[in-house]
C-alpha cells in the first residue's frame, strides 16, 4: 500500500509540477503578448507613444495609441512662395475689359491716348498731357466737376481696385536719375496712402523712335538708352515698395530696343492699333491683391515731403508725352 501510496504521491507531484509549468508558460506568453503589443505601437508611432506617456491616457492593460490626441492639422496644400517683386508680372490668361472697371490710370499724353484709342472703354482717366513725376503733386492739371486737381489729388477722390502708373517720357530730358527714383518712390508711397487696398502697377516705359522724334521736333535728347535706365529704376522702385511691375516695354521694342516706325508718327505717341496692343498686354499681365499681399495690405509709409527735385540742365524743359 505504501508503495501504492508513494506512487500516488509521485503521480500527484508530477501533476502539480505540470500545472506550475503550464502556469509559468501561460504567464510568459501573456507577458510576451503584452510586450510585443506595446513595443509594436511604440515603434510605429513614437510621437504618439511620447504624447501618450505625457498625457497619462490609456487603459490599465497598456497604452492604446488609437486614443491619443492627433497632432495639429497641417494643410496638405503647399504654401505659395512669396511674390517676387523684383520680377515683372508674368503672363497669364487674359482678363475681360471689365477688370479695369475699378482701375485708375495715372500718366501723361501716352496714357491719355491709351484711354481713348485702345478700346478699353472703362477705367478712370487721370492722365494729363505733359505731366511728369517731378510735378505730379504740383500741377492741377485735371478738371473734375468744375474743380481743378493734381493727379494725386484726383486719385484720392474715391477708392479704386487697381492703379496703373505710366510716367517717365517727359522726364527723359532731365539729368537727375536719383531724383527720378526718389520722386517715384514718394509718388508710390502717396498712392498707397490714399489707395491702401489697390493693386499698384508701375508700367515700364514703351520705347521711343529716336529718329522719328528728332524729325518731328528737332530734339535729340530723347534716347532709349536713358529710357531703359528709367525702366531699371522703376523696377527697383517696384521691388522696394512691393508693387507690381508690368514690363510693357517688351511688347513694343524691336531688335534694336526701339519703337518701330509703324507704331507712331512722332516716335512717342502711339497709333490706335498700337494702343490696342498695349491694352492686350495689360489684359494678359495681371496679378491679384491677395497674391501680392497674402498677409494683408502692406504698411503705409509717409512720403518724404521734399525728395530731390529735377535737374533740367540737359533739357530744354519742354514735354513730349
Amino acid at each position, binding site marked *: 500500500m505504501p508503495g501504492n501510496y508513494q506512487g500516488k504521491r509521485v503521480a500527484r507531484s508530477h501533476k502539480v509540477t505540470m500545472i506550475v509549468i503550464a502556469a509559468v508558460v501561460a504567464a510568459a506568453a501573456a507577458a510576451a503578448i503584452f510586450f510585443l503589443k506595446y513595443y509594436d505601437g511604440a515603434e510605429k508611432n513614437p510621437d504618439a507613444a511620447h504624447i501618450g506617456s505625457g498625457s497619462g491616457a490609456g487603459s490599465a492593460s497598456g497604452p492604446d495609441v488609437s486614443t491619443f490626441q492627433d497632432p495639429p492639422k497641417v494643410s496638405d496644400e503647399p504654401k505659395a512662395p512669396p511674390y517676387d517683386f523684383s520680377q515683372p508680372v508674368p503672363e497669364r490668361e487674359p482678363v475681360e475689359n471689365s477688370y479695369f472697371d475699378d482701375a485708375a490710370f495715372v500718366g501723361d499724353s501716352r496714357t491719355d491716348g491709351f484711354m*481713348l484709342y485702345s478700346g478699353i*472703354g472703362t477705367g478712370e482717366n487721370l492722365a494729363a498731357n*505733359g505731366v511728369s513725376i517731378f510735378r505730379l503733386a504740383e500741377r492741377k492739371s485735371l478738371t473734375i466737376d468744375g474743380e481743378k486737381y493734381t493727379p494725386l489729388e484726383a486719385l484720392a477722390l474715391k477708392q479704386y481696385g487697381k492703379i496703373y502708373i505710366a510716367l517717365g517720357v517727359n522726364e527723359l530730358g532731365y539729368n537727375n536719375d536719383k531724383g527720378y527714383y526718389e520722386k517715384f518712390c514718394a509718388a508710390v508711397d502717396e498712392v498707397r496712402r490714399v489707395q491702401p487696398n489697390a493693386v499698384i502697377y508701375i508700367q515700364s516705359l514703351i520705347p521711343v523712335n529716336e529718329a522719328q522724334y528728332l524729325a518731328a521736333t528737332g530734339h535729340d535728347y530723347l534716347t532709349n538708352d536713358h529710357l531703359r535706365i528709367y525702366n531699371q529704376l522703376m523696377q527697383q522702385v517696384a521691388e522696394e515698395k512691393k508693387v507690381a511691375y508690368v514690363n510693357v516695354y517688351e511688347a513694343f521694342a524691336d531688335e534694336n530696343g526701339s519703337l518701330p516706325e509703324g507704331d*507712331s508718327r*512722332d516716335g512717342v505717341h*502711339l497709333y490706335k492699333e498700337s494702343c490696342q496692343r498695349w491694352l492686350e498686354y495689360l489684359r494678359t499681365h495681371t496679378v491679384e491683391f491677395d497674391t501680392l499681399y497674402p498677409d494683408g495690405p502692406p504698411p503705409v509709409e509717409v512720403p518724404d515731403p521734399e525728395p530731390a527735385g529735377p535737374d533740367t540742365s540737359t533739357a530744354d524743359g519742354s*514735354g513730349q508725352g
Partner: protein
Amino acid sequence: MKKLLTIMLALALSLGMTACGGKDSGDYKPADVQAMAEAGAFSETLEELDADTAFSALYRLESYGLAREDLKDCAVLRSAGATCEEGTVLVLDSEAHAKDAQKALEDYVQGQIDANEDYGYRLAEVPKLKDAYIDVKGCTVLMVVANDLEAAKKAVDGKS
C-alpha cells in the same frame, strides 16, 4: 379751338424736325469731318473715335447735363498725340443740347491750351488750338483744330 391747337402742335413738331437734322436743314453732317480730312485740313492722318468714347472719355458731355442718348450721331477724327489737330461733328437731339455740347467743346479746347502752356508741352500746337473753330447749326456742333483752317471751312461750306 381743339382743331387749331392740334394743327399748331403738328406745325411745331414739323419745324422741330426740320431744325434737328432734316435733309435740307443746312446743319453740319458727320461726313463733313471726312471731307475736311480729304481737303488737306490736317497735317497728318487722324485716328477715328467712336461715339461712346467721344461722349464720355473725350468731351465728358455728361458733365454738361447731357445723357448718352442725347447724342444721336457723331464723327470724330483726332491726332494720336503728335499734334492737337482734330475734327468733330456732333449731332444732338435738340438745339438746347447742341448749345450744351458747344460749351463742352469750348472748355475742352481751353483745357488743352491751359495744359499745354502750363507744362510747356507741344507749344507749337497752341496757335492751332487758339484758332479752333467751334460752331452750332441747329442741333449740330462742328469743331475744327486744323493745320489749314481755311481748307477745313471750305470743305464744310461746299457740302452744307
